[in-house]
């Protein structure tokens, strides 16, 4: 890998960022307004006592409490870590399994991984009480036994691997070349273990806590990998459709088919793991706290919306599998996209609030309650807008390069 191509790719990204039509600039402006608004809420309200030293505001404005110390931010952190799986699935399909139709999607997938990892890291940053302290204390790795530190290490490594390889590919393709064998192998060798590691280590944050029987199960890490491999390609298929709508670039229907198939197979695995979990805890008398947590999840203690989300996950996941079994779905682009949407919604319901909030069911007391507040919603919206901006910044050059290559 040469540095020249990477710099060339970076220059191209910057050049593309400042050039664009009315649609581009209005999208950027809208996203920037959202980012600015949520930055205002974060600095002047949620983190005002820490950043400005004033008496009002604070994390008290969120729905979190001593009983439920993690909420919407942590949920979305987990979800966006999962979305980052898309890039490695595409790269494996193209480079290892030789699916040529998917090749046009690889750079787009890397852009998606970069943006989603940025969102995940940002969700940690807006959530911690003392963000400045975090920035200079965490890299010191003061406690190597803390999984949290290691999660940041793998997240940042995977982000860098995707970003550098994306810039490199852009640099190479700009010169009309093809990404060489060595660069592909280097990316796969580096990113494939890291891709598994990000989901695994993220699950390892929750999995070893004996205090939280709902999380304290060896099935959590495989479940995170399965739901990541379901949601990542599903979102990639949907964003590819958006690219098709916005540009003249067209992707092969087989690429969609591959992405949706990976999504559905991963959904089946995730459903299977959920079933295994329910059987383990609920069929016969077992660990009471685990039974209580699972019953709670299905009955919705801590907010009826949690039960709604959990049941939505089960129903949508089953529906997406059934839909995919029909041969017509696999032939039609539109139905494939509906299928991807079903999977994505199912994973949103499974991997966000129900997973986090139910974990906090106390062992020695009764009941929890958590509902996100407008403050949290505003800040979460801003993080999404910023991630969208990063995606736009990286995906646009990728699409333009792909269109150029198609013309040649």
């Amino acid at each position, binding site marked *: 890998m040469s540095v020249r191509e990477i710099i060339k790719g970076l220059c191209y990204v910057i050049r593309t960022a400042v050039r664009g039509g009315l649609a581009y600039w209005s999208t950027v402006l809208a996203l920037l307004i959202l980012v600015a608004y949520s930055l205002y809420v974060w600095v002047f309200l949620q983190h005002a006592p820490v950043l400005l030293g004033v008496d009002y505001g604070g994390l008290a404005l969120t729905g979190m409490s*001593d009983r439920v110390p993690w909420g919407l931010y942590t949920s979305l952190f987990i979800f966006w870590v999962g979305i980052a799986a898309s890039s490695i699935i595409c790269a494996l399909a193209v480079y290892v399994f030789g699916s040529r139709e998917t090749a046009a999607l690889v750079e787009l997938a890397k852009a998606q991984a970069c943006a989603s990892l940025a969102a995940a890291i940002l969700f940690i940053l807006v959530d911690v*009480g*003392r963000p400045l*302290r*975090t920035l200079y204390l965490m890299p010191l790795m003061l406690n190597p036994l803390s999984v949290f530190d290691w999660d940041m290490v793998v997240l940042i490594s995977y982000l860098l691997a995707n970003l550098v390889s994306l810039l490199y590919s852009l640099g190479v393709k700009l010169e009309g070349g093809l990404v060489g064998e060595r660069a592909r192998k280097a990316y796969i060798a580096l990113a494939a273990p890291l891709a598994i590691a990000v989901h695994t280590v993220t699950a390892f944050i929750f999995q070893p806590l004996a205090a939280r029987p709902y999380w304290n199960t060896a099935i959590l890490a495989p479940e995170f990998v399965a739901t990541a491999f379901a949601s990542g390609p599903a979102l990639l298929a949907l964003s590819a459709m958006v690219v098709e709508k916005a540009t003249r670039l067209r992707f092969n229907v087989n690429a969609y088919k591959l992405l949706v198939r990976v999504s559905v197979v991963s959904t089946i695995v995730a459903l299977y793991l959920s079933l295994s979990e329910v059987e383990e805890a609920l069929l016969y008398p077992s660990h009471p706290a685990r039974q209580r947590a699972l019953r709670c999840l299905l009955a919705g203690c801590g907010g009826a919306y949690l039960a709604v989300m959990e049941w939505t996950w089960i129903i949508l996941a089953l529906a997406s599998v059934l839909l995919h079994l029909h041969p017509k779905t696999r032939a039609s682009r539109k139905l494939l996209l509906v299928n991807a949407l079903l999977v994505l919604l199912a994973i949103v319901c499974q991997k966000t609030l129900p997973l986090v909030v139910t974990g906090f069911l106390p062992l020695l007391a009764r009941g929890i309650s958590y509902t996100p507040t407008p403050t949290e919603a505003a800040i979460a919206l801003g993080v999404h807008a910023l991630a969208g901006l990063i995606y736009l910044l990286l995906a646009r050059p990728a699409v333009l390069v792909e269109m150029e290559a198609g013309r040649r």
Partner: protein
Amino acid sequence: MVDVERRRLLKMLALAAAVAISLKPVIDVRELLLRKSLGERAKELEEEIKKWCLERASRICKEKGFESPECRLAVRKCELVSVSAEPPKPGTQYAMAIDLSRCIGCRRCVYACMLENNVSRNLDEGWIVVEELDLSEVIGAPLKGEKTPVPISCMHCENPPCVLVCPVAATWVEPDGIVVIDYARCIGCRYCMAACPYNARRFNWAKPVIPVWQLNPHMHVYGNVPREAHVVEKCTFCIHRVRRGLPPACVEACPTGARIFGNLEDPNSPVRRVIDEYPCFTLLPEAGTKPKVFYFFSGGVKR
């Protein structure tokens, strides 16, 4: 020409100032972590708290009049402020035993703890929470529907999961068995709260409010110094008291004498004798934390 030069110089100065300001917290913490001894930190904290206290006191005096009892008390408290960095004594392992036959659930320990440890008055829970637990769940006895008040606070575990998960090592077990938090290092990620099976840790979800006339001026750097916003805190067995040979405030406040405190390694300490004489148990032994707060029934389960 000269004007341009000057403008350039001013610009550079402004830039340098901006860089210096943005780097300040970094430099502060490096000093904190690498150079300052705990004693020096305690002394600095004392100055800081005194200044803050006097500022608050003058505000109170202006509001309520200089002759008001609040004003007098506040000024007196500010004069008394002392922050110690008392180290642990060798050969001590502090522990507590709580007699559930005697606990009447009056929550005076909760109140005493709040006053003693300068716990914020504006945020929800104190360091001690008295839960009404089903006896069948506490001791596994078939006494369905029978509730008993169980005071729960930090168990000062031998195997504390909160200490293991902290990403910046801001919490640890002291040689005398007290689990402490360095408030200056806590990043407020709340991972320790997720890891604690007893929900013993509290987060300062906003700037904590304490009326200074109610301030407890006898402080320890790892204990009851007033906390900042967005850091975690919890029971420290009243570290500022026990390291000077006094019992924790909750032990003193308990009207029925249900709380017994002492040094586990001293064969004559009250807690050692209780543990030797009564069948004691701990909460959630299956979590593997090995708590050092024990529970027992001195006079039967039912009264």
